[in-house]
């Protein structure tokens, strides 16, 4: 088995300044932690003031609030932090360890060489009145307006003796932060004389520390919860709310003085533009991280670009703080003392073959490739060695250390030829998933065909069409291409490329009259030993039905 051996190392210098985008509380904390690790930080905020969006994320953090103000004051005098307000990112060239960021502030454009970039945008709030068929009126408040009223002693008095109804979880799926705002308001209203609170709720999103206790406390203090599966009937713009109670078997009608409508917490509008400039993916709902467990908590699809807090998903400050500490670790690990030891042969471009067609630049999921005068250039720091580029390159100009085409084809041939056992089944296994699962099946003595040979690849995206065809020519009776499940590839699309190549191979098999069933693409995971066993055993059965390969 060829192991990835990168013994030939070189030391390179990398930039150690760090760019933090977003001067909200998460961005301030990130700047403070990174500067505290000894790196210079450029903190960029689009508005005139830092920390200006002290909104819903502060709910429930009364005791911590003082500390947050200190943090903000401290950052302003920290000589390691350069603050640029009313500024924005215009472009970012280069790769991890060596980004050239251009920032605009007024008419000026400032250029900075940075080693890492942290995106720390905040979430935005949006009205959901329309979802409930409500129009703005004196009796219809957004959650934000209710928060404002409760923050002012004068306004609070005006809420005495009012009946207040909250609508939550029926205009959207919601999340714990949305519910936390409702619970906090409810408990605050219960401190005011004569306030009655009714809550019309879909699923109560209590999956956050302390919420179940707050829910209980509010009930004990007299809040009434109506748990519904659909919106109640809202009459005369919220003057009356009515629904059919399935337990009491009757309509329940309430006429509140005030109706408070939940708000949507959504991704910052800036995210899309930032993603475009940084060439990182926009994930579900406009947040800047794909739903891929290998990126959690704070990685983006590009090395050296990190995402914190509500940049990647709706976060309260506690989880944003967790993200920031993880980013501080990642940044320390990445930048170190500005010197980085990298493998020389991770991905090598052959200048004689490269025609700068930019195929590799387009297909690299890590944004690790750019181009020079005569050839494509692969950054040894940013490259993850997946090999997608090597297999996509139409000129075969790229070779991956430890997994060169020559080595791979040699391994394919010897895999088919060596040892005993028929039918001969060759399994190309991604080292992150299928290869691990195969080892697990073997070590746990699960059933495996005698004629099975596993060939390890750095990523399924490295499985070249040539390898598959060579294996059939060498006499393989069946071939499995085993990748990570869609959405689980560390290189995002390696499994997709592998599937495409298998589809190409099917067309060729058809032309030469070889049965399609001899080739199979399948997704698997590193902990699926039993799954691996059943996949290869099924494959053996199918091949036995077909008989040995006619190409033998």
């Amino acid at each position, binding site marked *: 088995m060829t192991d990835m051996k990168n013994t030939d190392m070189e030391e390179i210098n990398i930039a150690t300044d760090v760019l933090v985008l977003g001067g909200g509380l998460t961005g301030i904390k990130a700047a403070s*932690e990174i500067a*505290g*690790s*000894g790196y210079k930080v450029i903190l960029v905020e689009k508005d005139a003031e830092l920390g200006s969006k002290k909104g819903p994320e502060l709910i*429930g953090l009364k*005791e*911590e609030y003082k*500390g947050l103000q200190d943090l903000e004051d401290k950052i302003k005098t920290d000589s390691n932090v350069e603050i640029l307000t009313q500024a924005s990112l215009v472009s970012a060239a280069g790769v991890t360890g060596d980004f050239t960021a251009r920032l605009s502030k007024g008419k000026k454009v400032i250029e900075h060489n940075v080693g890492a970039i942290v995106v720390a945008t905040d979430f935005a709030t949006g009205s959901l009145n329309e979802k409930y068929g409500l129009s703005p009126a004196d009796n219809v408040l957004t959650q934000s307006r209710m928060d404002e009223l409760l923050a002012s002693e004068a306004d609070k008095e005006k809420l005495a003796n009012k009946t207040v109804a909250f609508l939550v979880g029926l205009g959207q*799926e919601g*999340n714990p932060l949305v519910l936390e705002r409702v619970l906090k308001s409810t408990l605050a209203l219960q401190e005011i004389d004569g306030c009655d609170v009714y809550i019309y709720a879909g*699923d*109560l*999103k*209590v*999956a956050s*520390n302390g*919420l*179940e*206790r707050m829910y209980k406390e509010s009930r004990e203090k007299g809040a009434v919860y109506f*748990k519904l599966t659909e919106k109640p009937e809202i009459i005369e713009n919220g003057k009356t709310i009515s629904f059919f109670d*399935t*337990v009491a078997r009757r309509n329940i009608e309430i006429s509140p003085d005030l109706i408070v409508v939940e708000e949507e917490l959504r991704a910052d509008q800036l995210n899309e533009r930032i993603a475009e400039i940084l060439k990182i993916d926009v*994930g*579900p*709902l406009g*947040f800047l*991280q794909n*739903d*891929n*467990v*290998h990126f*959690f*908590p*704070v990685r983006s699809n590009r090395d050296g670009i990190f995402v914190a807090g509500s940049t990647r998903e709706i976060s309260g*400050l*506690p*989880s944003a*703080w*967790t993200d920031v*500490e*993880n980013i*501080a*670790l990642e940044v320390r690990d990445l930048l170190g003392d500005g010197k980085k030891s990298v493998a020389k042969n991770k991905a090598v471009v052959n200048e004689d073959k490269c025609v700068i067609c930019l195929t590799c630049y387009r297909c690299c999921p890590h944004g690790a490739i750019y181009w020079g005068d005569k050839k494509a250039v692969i950054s040894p720091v940013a490259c993850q060695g997946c090999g997608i580029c090597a297999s996509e390159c139409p000129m075969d100009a790229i070779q991956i250390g430890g997994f060169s085409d020559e080595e791979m084809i040699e391994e394919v041939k010897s895999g088919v030829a060596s040892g005993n056992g028929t039918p001969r089944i060759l399994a190309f296994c991604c080292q*992150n*998933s299928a290869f*691990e699962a195969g080892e697990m099946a073997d*070590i746990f003595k699960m059933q495996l065909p005698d004629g099975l040979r596993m060939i390890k690849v750095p990523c399924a995206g490295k499985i070249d069409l040539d390898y598959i065809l060579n294996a059939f020519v060498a006499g393989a009776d069946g071939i499995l291409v085993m990748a990570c*499940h*869609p*959405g*689980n590839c560390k290189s995002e699309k390696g499994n997709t490329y592998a599937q495409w190549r298998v589809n190409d191979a099917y067309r060729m098999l058809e032309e030469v009259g070889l049965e399609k069933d001899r080739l199979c693409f399948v*997704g*698997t*995971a*590193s*902990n*699926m*030993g039993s*799954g691996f066993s*059943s996949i290869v055993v099924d494959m053996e059965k199918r091949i036995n039905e077909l008989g040995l390969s006619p190409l033998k």
Partner: protein
Amino acid sequence: MSTENKKVMVVGGGIAGLTAAWELSRFNIDVELIEKTPFLGGYAIRYCCKATDECRQCGACTVEAMLKNVVNEPKIKVHLATDVEKINNRGRLSVDLKKSSYKPDSATEGVVRGYSKNNSPLHVIVDKEKCEENPDAVPEGAVELDTMGFSGKLDVDAVILASGFKPFDAEQKGTYGYKKFPNVVTGMDLELIIRENAIVVRPSDGKTAQKIAFIQCVGSRDESLGNLWCSQVCCPYALRMAERIKHKNADAEITVFYMDIQNAGKDYAGFYEKCKTEFRFVRNIPVDVFPMENDSLSMRYMNEEDGLCINEEFDLLVLSVGIVPGPDNSNLADLFDVGLNEDGFFAGIDKLNSTSTLKDGIFLAGTVGGPKDIAASMAHAGQAASEVIKHLGVS
């Protein structure tokens, strides 16, 4: 200040402990990783992959990857079958360790196996006599539990408590008939069934289960137990598991009994919508379960449409058990002089920094501080490692 000679003890080899140890080792810090059982990986290493034709983001595969990182990292010294005995707080933390009193849950066989190929040793002999009766059945390389464990003193600069949680003991909710009726299983049992067999079968007869019920919030959000928290993991694991079952067996009929469904994954609204088209959701938690002739189970619940009670039969009942504080929490709290919160989990310094404690040099990682899923436990462990590095003044 250099990182040389800095040493940190991590108590607990589950996903949080593994992650904390690994993160520290990346910064050249020596780690002593203490695990009371003979295997690393905790509960998370036992979970199955819940992918359908696409990844469902359960994170179980990331636990395998982290375990592999740790066992291959020379900066991390692992002490299996070892427990903390005493702390002597003089300058550096001096910790006395002892062989743990670990006993396997079921001692029916003489040998227990780890859950990952990366467990070393993979097989541990827990009952020598049984093994002597049938020596051929003892796998090569099996190690006697009696010979494992470390007794002695270790001086360290900081300690991370990552001793994890306990799955709620479903026998406490007696009316569900867990361990009385063979086809009542917990979510944890189901993880193991799938991990070992790749398919879901009824424990009573090994047949494919067609009509399956999940009951949510077993041991969570339960005033009668005093468990006033949402375990945060059960809705995601139950829905992902149900999806996986449905993917393998399109004819399976799945019902989820619930109070409030919690979010799973980043695109939770889309995922929940999909689930609603595939399973039946009943907003009602049944109380009583009755056995039927063929080992099926009958349950009683209220129909929302007419308000009447329904009795319905199921092939398999899955109890979505939650996260409760670890069995060692009170002992560890005493030993390390760190407080527990009102729920019995360890208390962090404040809401924003839930990994530091009021006790200098003692930190928390993972479910020791409250319910978390795999991803959140790993993130919390990263935060703990970062706080430790600051504490040590490493740069």
